[in-house]
C-alpha cells in the first residue's frame, strides 16, 4: 500500500536534527521549530519541546513511515488542549516527558528526542510501558491513528460501503492470485 502514500518531507528529521532541542530551551520555539512544525509552537499547555517529544514518542509507539508527523501531532494536540488551563493535567504531561528524558539520559546519556536510533528510544518506552502516561498515549493513538479516516487509504482500507451498494459488484471476490500459489 505504500504506493498510495504521498512522500512528504519528514518533519521529525527537522525536529530531531542538529541538537535542536538544546537550542529550543533557550530560543523562542517558533524560530527553532520552523514553519513545518508550527503545531508544536502552538502548544497551549505544555512547553513546545514537551509537545515535540510526545509527538516523537507517539510515532515510536505506532511507527508508520508513510504518515507524516501531523497525524501524531493531532493526538498530542488532544492531550495539550485538554490540559490547557489545568495545572495538574499539564504537570502529568510535563512529568511524563521528564521521566522519558531522565530514563533516556540514564541509559543513553541524552534526552529522548536526541536519541537517533528508534531502538534506543523504544527501549526507554518499553521500560515505562505500564505507566499511566505511556498507556494514555498508546490508548489515544489506537483510535487517533487507526480510526482516523484520513489514514485509511494509506492502509488499503475502504471504510463505509453500504452507501455504495456494498461490494457485491465491487470486488468482494476479486482475488486473482490464488491459482499461482
Amino acid at each position: 500500500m505504500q504506493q498510495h502514500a504521498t512522500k512528504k518531507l519528514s518533519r521529525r528529521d527537522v525536529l530531531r536534527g542538529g541538537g535542536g532541542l538544546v537550542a529550543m530551551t533557550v530560543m523562542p520555539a517558533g524560530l527553532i521549530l520552523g514553519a513545518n512544525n508550527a503545531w508544536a509552537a502552538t502548544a497551549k499547555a505544555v512547553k513546545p519541546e514537551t509537545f515535540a517529544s510526545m509527538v516523537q514518542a507517539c510515532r515510536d509507539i505506532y511507527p508508520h513511515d508513510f504518515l507524516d508527523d501531523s497525524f501524531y501531532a493531532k493526538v498530542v494536540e488532544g492531550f495539550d488542549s485538554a490540559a490547557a488551563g489545568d495545572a495538574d493535567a499539564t504537570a502529568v504531561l510535563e512529568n511524563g516527558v521528564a521521566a522519558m528524558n531522565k530514563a533516556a539520559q540514564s541509559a543513553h546519556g541524552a534526552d529522548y528526542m536526541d536519541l537517533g536510533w528508534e531502538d534506543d528510544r523504544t527501549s526507554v518506552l518499553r521500560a515505562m510501558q505500564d505507566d499511566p502516561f505511556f498507556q494514555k498515549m498508546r490508548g489515544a493513538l489506537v483510535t487517533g491513528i487507526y480510526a482516523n479516516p484520513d489514514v485509511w487509504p494509506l492502509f488499503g482500507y475502504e471504510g463505509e460501503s453500504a452507501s455504495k451498494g456494498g461490494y457485491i459488484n465491487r470486488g468482494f471476490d476479486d482475488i486473482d492470485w490464488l491459482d499461482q500459489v
Partner: protein
Amino acid sequence: MTAKFDLNDDTVVVVVGSGAGGGTLGAELAMKGVRTVILEAGGRHEIADFNNDEWGMFGQISWLDKRTTSGDWRVAKDFAGLPAWIVKAVGGSTVHWAGASLRIQEHEFKTKTNYGEVAGANLLDWPLDLAELEPWYDKAEDRMGVTRTNGIPGLPGNNNFKIMKAGADKLGYKECHTGRMAINSQPRDGRGSCQQIGFCFQGCKTGAKWSTLYVEIPKGEKTGNLEVRSGAQVLKVEHDANGKATGVMYVDQDGNTQVQKARVVCVAGNSIESPRLLLNSQSSMFPDGIANSSGMVGKNYMRHMTGSVYAIFDKPVHMYRGTTMAGIIQDEAVHDTSRGFVGGYEMETLSLGLPFMGAFLDPGGWGRSFSSAMEGYENMAGMWLVGEDMPQETNRISLHASEKDQHGLPVPNVHFDDHPNDIAMRNHAFQQGAAVYDAVGATRTFPTPPYPSTHNLGTNRMSDKAQDGVVNKWGQTHDVSNLFVSDGSVFTTGAAENPTLTIVALALRQADHIASELSKQNL
C-alpha cells in the same frame, strides 16, 4: 398492532431481554396467542440508525455498564472493564452477531459420558439430546433462513473465504464451505439478499441478516399480543409467600421504578445479566438469590475457547469486503484426544476494519512489530477460532462486594481461569490456523488473543437433577415453577458451535412448552 398492557395485569408473561432467546420467545408466545411483555434494558435502534462505523456503533449499542473482571484469562488484563462484547439494545446481540448457525453435535450434548473425567472440569450431560432438539433446530433454521438448510443456497465466497478454502484444500481438510449462515443468500421472508457490505458486526444495513430486532419482534407485535418496553432495566424478580414469581421490578426509560405483574417470568438477559438478576433477587425465602437452592446460579461460566489468526500475504486480499463470517473449516470440530485435548473447535473467517484491528490484533502491543503488521492490512486474511471450553465451577458471575451500578445494585464480576484443556486447544488451533495460511504463501501470521467474550454461556445450567443445576430441560427453574431462563446461560456445556441457533431452537421449544402448560392451567 403493538399491545399495551397494564402494570397490574398479572396474566401476562414477562420476558426479560429481547435477544436471540428473549426476542424469539416473546414473539413466538405472542404468535401463539399468549399476551407477553418484553422488558429490554437497551434502546430501540432500527436499521436506519446503523452505520458502517466500528467505534461509532460500538458506542451506540454495546453493553457498557460497569463490570469487573478477575482470573488468569487474558481478557481480564487487556479489557479489564469489558469482559463481554454484547449488545444492549432491542434485538440484543442478534444486532451485531455474525450469523453463523450451527447445530450442536450429538456427542457434545453428553460430554460427561463421552469425555469421561477431566480434572478440574465440571462436565455434565445435558438433560436432552440431539434427537429431541432436531425438530426445533429444523424450525429455527427455517425461521432464520439458514443457508445450506431448507434448500437455501450457500453465500458466495468472498476473498477472505477463498484464501481459507485454498489453504484448507492444501492441508487436506474436507469440510470447508461458506457456512450455515442466517443471512439471506437470496430474497426470503420479506428481506433481500446479502449485498456483501461487510460490517455484519455493526448491524446489517439491508436486513439480510436475521435479527430479532427486525424479524421476530415486529411479527410478534403485529399479533397485538406483544409489548416491547425498551430502556427498561429489570432489578429484581418478585415472588409471593408460596415461592411463585409474581412479577418484576424495573426502572423504566424515564428513570421511574415500576413493578410489572406476571403469570410467568422468563429471564433472557445473557449469561452475565441473567444470573446477576437472580442473585440480586434475594429475599428471606431466597437468601442466596431466587432459584439458587443448588448454589449453581452464576457458576460454570463459559465463553468458548477463542482466538484468531491473521496472516499477511504479498498481494492484496481486502478481507473486509463482504460477509464477515461466511467461511468455515469444520474438520477440527471433532472429539479426538490424539490432539491432546477433549472436544473440538471451528475455524471461521473473520475480519475487522482498520479501527478495530488496531485495538484487537495484539491488545497492548506497540512498536514496529505491531505497526508493520498493521501495514499489511490490505494483504491480510483472518479467521476466528471457536471451540468448546471446560465448565469450571470457579469460573463464575458473582455480585461485586462494593461496586454499585447506576441503580444502586452490585455490579457483576466475571471470573475466568483458562482450563488446561482450553489452553491446549487454543495452541493447537493457533498452529492449524497458521498452517492454513502458510500453505498458501503467508509471509507472516499472527496469533491474536481472545476478544471480550461474545459467547457467554452456562451460568444457569440445565440439569436433570435439581442439585446439579438451575433449570430443567425446558429452561424452567428447578425451584420456582413459573420462573424460566431463556438464553445461553442454560447451556449445560458449551459445545464448539456458535450458540445462537441453539438458543433460538431452545426458545421456540420453550415457547411451545409454556403455551401448552398455560392452556392446561399448569402455570
